[in-house]
């Protein structure tokens, strides 16, 4: 098994620009070509622990990131991304080109993973128990996820919860964590050992920096995890950290609201959300200090190790 970090940077950049590389994410095979130096640097630093797939095989998704036309091959200012030969979103300034990689991987998993239910939310795991954190963009879920990933929790994803309905297991992708604006320095201070790519300035969401996933999380990317808690986090400046239990109906709504293409997921999406609501205690978490939030979440894990009370059965029909 060859990992990206095994290659010398110059050799890897040449490989990426010629034959391309194949990466796996949530069971999908992505083939990626690029002659943009920032893309090679992004992959070399942030995917260093990720294994490459064998060069032969069926590609589920193909992404080519290149200069945006003949003039840009000279000017080298603007970059385009093509998926299967078609433009993938609008061209971007060169410095933002790494967002194409992450955006395309998110896109392919969210919309091409026919066998999974995908929820917009982070997932971490400890002691075999996973916490799903469904939340909107800007809620602070990636920040909390990054902090947990550096305090003993295993990172599965900061962006997409990938649920396998057949056995209700969570699939890991262990990809870089996207941090924005003030969260970048917050995590730098919270976890000095964390490694970051460059700060990408000028995007629609402000400054963005990708945090490299901890090596252990990448090494264990093939391990699934059982969902144990649902926590919807919200950063609120100055707020005392507070975990508020929610009803199963609210937990169901959290899952449904976050499910990508819920309407087309049909009965499978509904049943998956029901099973999560029935099997996982759910909470809303408001916080302003990461240490306080982690203490509350750690408390849930500690209490879970004690015998849990039996919950009443729900009425249901099918």
């Amino acid at each position, binding site marked *: 098994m060859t990992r990206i970090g095994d290659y010398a940077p110059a050799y890897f950049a040449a490989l990426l620009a010629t034959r391309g590389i194949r990466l796996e994410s949530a069971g999908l095979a992505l083939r990626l070509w690029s002659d943009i130096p920032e893309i090679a640097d992004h992959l070399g630093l942030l995917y260093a622990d990720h294994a490459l797939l064998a060069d032969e095989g069926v590609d589920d998704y193909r992404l080519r990131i290149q200069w945006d036309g003949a003039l840009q091959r000279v000017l080298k200012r603007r970059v385009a991304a093509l998926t299967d030969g078609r433009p993938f979103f609008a061209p971007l300034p060169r410095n933002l080109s790494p967002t194409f990689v992450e955006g395309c991987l998110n896109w392919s998993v969210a919309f091409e993973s026919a066998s999974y239910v995908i929820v917009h939310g982070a997932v971490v795991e400890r002691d075999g128990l996973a916490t799903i954190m469904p939340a909107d963009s800007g809620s602070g879920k990636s920040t909390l996820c990054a902090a947990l990933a550096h305090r003993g929790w295993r990172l599965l994803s900061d962006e997409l919860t990938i649920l396998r309905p057949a056995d209700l297991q969570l699939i890991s992708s262990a990809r870089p964590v996207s941090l924005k604006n003030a969260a970048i320095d917050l995590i730098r201070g919270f976890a000095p050992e964390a490694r970051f790519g460059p700060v990408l300035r000028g995007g629609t969401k402000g400054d963005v920096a990708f945090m490299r996933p901890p090596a252990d999380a990448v090494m264990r990317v093939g391990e699934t995890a059982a969902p144990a808690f649902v926590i919807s986090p919200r950063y609120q400046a100055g707020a005392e950290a507070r975990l508020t239990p929610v009803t199963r109906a609210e937990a169901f709504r959290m899952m449904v609201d976050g499910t990508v293409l819920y309407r087309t997921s049909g009965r499978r999406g509904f*049943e998956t959300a029901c099973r999560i609501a029935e099997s996982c205690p759910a909470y809303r978490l408001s916080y302003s200090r990461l240490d306080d939030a982690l203490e509350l979440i750690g408390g849930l894990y500690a209490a879970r190790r004690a015998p849990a009370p039996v919950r009443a059965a729900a009425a249901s029909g099918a």
Partner: protein
Amino acid sequence: MPPDDSDARTWRIIHPEALSWRCWDGDYVIFNGQSGLTHALDVTAGAIFELALRGAATPAELQARLAAFLGPGAPPDLRGAVTSTLARLDQLGLAEAVA
């Protein structure tokens, strides 16, 4: 046609085999495989849905079943609750009058 106060028609749930549902502490969620829509109902509306699912009934019969089903928790205006809920279920394509 929505029910009114004098409605003596029998109401039934449409395509019950296409429905999946749960009730958690009085909160009902229903998935309609025919429409692909998911609905949330409160305890009274959900109970009327569940009772109609057990067997087609007139609004008067549903009022009696609802009183027994919810006991002291039943709404004071049973007739109004049944009438408005059947109208809502009709609108959602979950129930219909058959005779």
